[in-house]
């Protein structure tokens, strides 16, 4: 198992800077995930990018934990540093009723399309996003296809066979 002590230091540094930034730290399978409250995500991202050399957003994706869960959605940020080669994951839990989160597309420009994809497939709204349109599904699509309660064949008239 990979040594995660170096990565855990980033979580400690974040905590030292502002205790409200870190809700939880998950150290599993040689990977470190930091659970961040929704309000703090932009600050945490700016801090990690500017102070801790996480200059690459490798991926940004959504996850649906199921309609019975609350908070239902998780937005994952996979960070990578081309300076010290560390990988860090940020998790933000978002409830279904208030599925909104602030965009980080001004921090890493690559987040633009990733956030559009997450919005398209999960219906998580990224506030202040420059151009929040569907990116994969047709623009007049009904629903969000990767939600667990989305029927496989879609809604009418998409399910027309």
């Amino acid at each position, binding site marked *: 198992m990979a040594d995660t002590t170096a990565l855990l230091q980033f979580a400690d540094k974040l905590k030292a800077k502002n205790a409200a930034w870190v809700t939880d730290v998950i150290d599993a399978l040689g990977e470190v995930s930091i659970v961040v409250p929704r309000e703090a995500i932009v600050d945490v991202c700016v801090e990690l990018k500017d102070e801790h050399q996480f200059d690459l957003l490798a991926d940004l994706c959504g996850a649906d934990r199921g309609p019975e869960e609350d908070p239902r959605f998780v937005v994952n940020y996979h960070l990578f540093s081309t300076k010290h080669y560390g990988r860090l994951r940020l998790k933000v839990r978002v409830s279904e009723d208030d599925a909104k989160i602030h965009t980080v597309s001004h921090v890493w420009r690559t987040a633009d399309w990733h956030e559009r994809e997450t919005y398209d497939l999960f219906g998580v709204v990224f506030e202040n996003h420059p151009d929040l349109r569907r990116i994969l599904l047709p623009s007049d699509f009904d629903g969000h296809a990767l939600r667990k309660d989305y029927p496989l*064949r879609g809604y009418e008239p998409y399910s027309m066979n």
Partner: protein
Amino acid sequence: MGLENKLFESLPEVLTVKLDAVVNWARKSSLWPATFGLACCAIEMMNTVSSRNDLSRFGAETFRASPRQADVMIVSGRVSRKMAPVLRRIYDQMPEPKWVISMGACATSGGVFDNYAIVQGVDKVVPVDVYVPGCPPRPEMLVHAITMLQDKIMKESTRERADTFEPESRTSTVPGTMPITEGTALERETEIEVAQNEVTRPYTVPARHERRRTH
């Protein structure tokens, strides 16, 4: 001592034949497919023109990237709902006479992809002449489909195949698919029209010769 010498010795200078027979013979002997490689079936389609299978034996090896120069569309692969209007537009851009081969299970019926993203059969978007089963079909099957299409062409009437202006087919889209005019004034007009008339966009408006075929 060529075949021509023998032939012209025994034939008169003027020959009367059915126009359909000559025109159809010319058409079937030089089919120019438009490549519509959408998925893994396209690999088999490429193999069909390779030296092993040699589609040029049947006069259909000239694959064209431009629909303006093609008369057979080989739909090879699954058609996503977002691709459907693009496919329809490319079909509309092909001049008459034109034919469509639906290659493989996905293009024919959606195949294993029975879901919201895939059109359940390309015949909902364009009229299909020959269906090829298989996942993917072997190149021999595609060659067989082309020879079947050639048989079909020989039975056609030239008069039915006049190239006509079909404005209605230009606006046809599959419901739930993004118009390829996304973000343009035309799309906004269409959306307003759909909202005002409370209609859904039809799957496809049949082109002229499609309507004739059903009569």
